[in-house]
């Protein structure tokens, strides 16, 4: 199994959810993170003191899936989240070993 971790613009979350629903992928975990990469900084001012923002609000999406559905999920995310501007985010893929649904103790594919 794979863990797909996508760091995306928060404003894209809704569309991604809908798109994955269409693929039949419902299970996902979402969290608020901050990140930086190539995105350019913005400025903030407090009583004349200048500050630069170098961590931007992002949404992290974690989806554990069967190896064979990974490609579909990735391409959906890519097609929705790509505005071609800096700050669009990244997708990381990791190996996952096991998954258990707590309510039923089911494991593996059945647990997804």
């Amino acid at each position, binding site marked *: 199994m794979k863990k797909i971790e996508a760091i995306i613009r928060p*404003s894209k979350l809704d569309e991604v959810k809908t798109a994955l629903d269409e693929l039949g992928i419902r299970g996902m975990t979402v969290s608020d993170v901050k990140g930086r990469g190539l995105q350019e900084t913005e400025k903030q001012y407090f009583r004349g*003191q*200048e*500050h*630069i923002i*170098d961590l931007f609000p992002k949404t992290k999406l974690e989806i554990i899936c069967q190896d064979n559905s990974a490609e579909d999920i990735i391409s959906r995310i890519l097609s929705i989240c790509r505005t071609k501007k800096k700050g669009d985010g990244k997708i990381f893929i990791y190996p996952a070993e096991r998954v258990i649904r707590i309510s039923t103790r089911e494991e593996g594919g059945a647990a997804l």
Partner: protein
Amino acid sequence: MKTKWRWLYTITTLLMVMFGLPIIAAGADAPVIDTGDTAFIMISTALVMIMTPGLALFYGGMVRKKNVLGTIMQSFACMALVSVQWVLIGYTIGFGPDINHLIGGMQWMGMSGVTGDPNPLYSATIPHSVFVLFQLMFAIITVALISGAFAERMRFSIFVAFVLLWTTFVYDPLAHWVWGVDGWLRNLGALDFAGGTVVHISSGISGLIACIVLGRRRASGAEPMVPHNLPITMLGAGLLWFGWFGFNAGSALGANGLAASAFLVTNTCAATAAISWAAAEWLHHGKTTALGVASGVVAGLVAITPAAGFVSPASSILMGLIVGPLCYFAVSKIKTKLGYDDSLDAFGIHGVGGIFGALATGVLASTEINPAGFDGLLFGNPHQLLVQLIAVAATIVFASTVTFVILKVLSVFAPLRVSEEEEETGLDLTQHGEDAYSYGNSLSIVQV
């Protein structure tokens, strides 16, 4: 000289007492300040003032986190800008010596001639400057109310210009029409105790025009636009309710039975409308929401505003029962149907509630409550409803036209809205270079 004739004055006074004539009438040419009235109106002024920070919270809690400071700033900007404009020209345009029943003259420009003595034209028992201040607070909140309609998308520089133009070209003349000595709507006999037309209809309708001119907020996908902090919205509603006592009871311009009557119906209508809004929600979808109760309170306060000094407690209950569902219908059905994006329902509550209140005044006003007013339809005077209709129509036509012109003129100089990207990032950061909250452990910014 003066002392020589003092005895005559004294004797006259004594005679008048003897004949039961009110002394105040004799003193009309030299009105005397009543400390109780003055205390009441000065404190009422403070109460009306705190309504605008209250509105800032009420609105600020309803927008998304990224726009909360932008929203609060709009209210504070109104406080700053209108306070200065009023002292310079606003007051005299509104309340200066009448010109053609349309506008006040420049006599009190820059507060010249406004002193601590009463101006018996408007209020014989309080210092003229107290009257100026009391009216100022109305001017401030009126334009601040509009900001709810186009929340989350207007450029701040445009907002500043809009406020100055709108308060000068819409609010000030309207105040003159309705409240100024010899204003045409006043002469016509239109009843507006504390600002149903001048404050609520004018701001509500202008908000509607403005949100249509600016267009809908952009949302990528189905991104929901939900309140980010309802507790501060509730606090805002509490402060509005609190301040509204100054607004409506203070409009009696004295600490008297009329003020008390206005106070009572104000509270009763607010409470009833909260219940009736909640009931409407409950019938619609089975829950009564906190935002609904707060909205009902405001709708009730809006509706009773023009009527406050003219109607009985029973009438105020009736008005509250109607205005809650009415505004709920406006914000939950009509808005969706017609598709305009009145973000925080400035029109849906102040426009709709204000129109209802102004007309209801024409029905429910009673000279038993206020002999200085008129009877409404229900008390045998259908004419009053007609007069109210004219006042409402005039306000709608005037406010919407001028608002439209102001926005069109401004749009010639610069875009009215922030860019799509700025809208996504939020007003706080793009317009003001600030972040409202920094709750996290890990800070996102570095000092330069």
